[in-house]
């Protein structure tokens, strides 16, 4: 276990979750290696989002163990998960609509703050210096995601594609070790998808962030991911390299067959 632990950032062991008796996921186990882009695919209602919610601590699994960065957990609140270095985006954008792009990105940094609210309110000591340093990091994220023109715009007023990008920026601002993306390209046109996959690849390559993403567009998935896990009706039916998965007959029948 130790030598896999070294290479695997995230390990799910026999995870099960059900709402009011309805099973969302049953006995899912897989591993995400450090530094890879892992795609989680499957038909609607396959339990992908539930799984992401479990990993990010929004839901608590009834069974199973999650091992992140060699620390095992059964139950953990969203906050603790964030502290451990997991950030995510949501299927239907969960931005803070009443705030500017910059402020949204800054909230992504909240765990890096050290000064107390009193220091900030009275503008004492380190608060100011900290504001500077946090702002600079936020600005770097904004530059990385090429959002400068919209820095001061209220996110509520931005077009869908941009909001998706801002949400990714907010997650990125936390300097996560594991980044969970729930359908980052849903409802985007070809160019936007192209651009978004570019961003995801850059995040993975330039910043060395491990990425676990849910995506429906098989083309995109096969292009950008090193590793694909296929779910169907809450069960894992495929796990391996894109090529291997593409050949897996069960996957073809259950997923590709139904969708293409």
């Amino acid at each position: 276990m130790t030598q896999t632990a070294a290479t695997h950032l995230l390990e799910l062991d026999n995870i099960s979750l059900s709402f009011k008796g309805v099973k969302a996921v049953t006995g899912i186990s897989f591993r995400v290696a450090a530094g890879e882009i892992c795609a989680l695919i499957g038909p609607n209602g396959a339990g992908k989002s539930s799984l992401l919610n479990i990993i990010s601590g929004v839901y608590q699994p009834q069974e199973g163990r999650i091992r992140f960065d060699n620390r095992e957990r059964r139950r953990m609140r969203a906050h603790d998960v964030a502290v451990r270095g997991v950030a995510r985006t949501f299927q239907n954008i969960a931005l803070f609509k009443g705030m500017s792009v910059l402020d949204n990105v800054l909230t992504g940094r909240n765990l890096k703050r050290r000064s107390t609210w009193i220091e900030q309110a009275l503008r004492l000591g380190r608060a100011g210096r900290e504001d500077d340093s946090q702002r600079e990091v936020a600005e770097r994220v904004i530059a990385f995601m090429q959002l400068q023109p919209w820095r001061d715009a209220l996110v509520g007023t931005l077009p869908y594609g941009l909001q998706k990008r801002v949400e990714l920026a907010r997650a990125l601002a936390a300097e996560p070790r594991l980044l969970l993306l729930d359908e980052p390209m849903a409802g985007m046109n070809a160019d936007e998808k192209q651009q978004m996959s570019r961003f995801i690849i850059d995040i993975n390559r330039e910043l060395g962030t491990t990425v676990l993403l849910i995506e429906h567009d098989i083309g995109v998935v096969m292009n950008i991911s090193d590793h694909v896990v296929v779910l169907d009706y809450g069960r894992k039916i495929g796990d391996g390299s894109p090529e291997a998965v593409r050949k897996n007959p069960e996957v073809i029948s259950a997923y590709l067959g139904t969708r293409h």
Partner: protein
Amino acid sequence: MEFFFEVLIGGLLAGVMYALVAIGFVLIYKASGVFNFAQGAMVLFSALTFVSLLERGVPFWLAFLISLAAMLLIAVAVERVVLRPLVNRSPITLFMATLGLSYVIEGFAQALWGAQVHGLDLGISDEPLELGGMLLSQFDIFAALTAASLVALLSWLFNKTRLGLALRAVADDPLAALAVGIRLQRVWVVVWTVAGFVGLVAGLLWGARLGVQFSLSLVVLKALPVLIIGGFTSISGAIIGGLIIGASEKLAEVYLGPIIGSGIENWFPYGLALLFLLVRPAGLFGERAIERV
């Protein structure tokens, strides 16, 4: 011991009144997801209209019908002026709107009928009745019976009629309801009218008790804890909640009052409701939604 039961029964009967007001809430909340703070104002307005008509020599039933018509008008107006423009806004916004609405209705009621207290006699004598060695007010019993029949009527309305079907459809899933061609607006108007009707009945019973006056609109403040305990979406919950509140506040007044001080009944229900919330956030009968993200 008998004293205890008298207090208890008295409380329960008072609770019936709360329940009546709460039912109005539940109807509107189910149908339009609006937490209608103006329910109290509607009680006041309907009762005030009714008595004022009586005082002007209008026969009982006619006055009743006219008041009902007035409530229908209010329902139509509310749907046009408040609900429609605010459709799919946040519940909090809608709540604050009904807060404004209650001001309008109260102001209007008093501007129209004046602010003085009107006595109301429904012709039910209020001399106590001896039942199993306990003294019970006839009026309270009458009130209880009225409430019971009202509830029966409502449950028939909602379980047996097409309207009821539509209402439940809307309550479950407004979009789907729209899809199958249910006219939301119409349902809303009907529901607000029915709520107005319930309010009228409640108003008359209260009014006959305490006189028809501004304080009627304050029963809304009692209805809130009732709803918390019974759940926002369940009529039977509203009734049971009402009974619990009524009974407990009376008992508390009688037994706790001497210890921590009298007059606790205007905050005790809230304390109780809070306790409930911490134990059972969705109330006794309300269903809790799973948060989707």
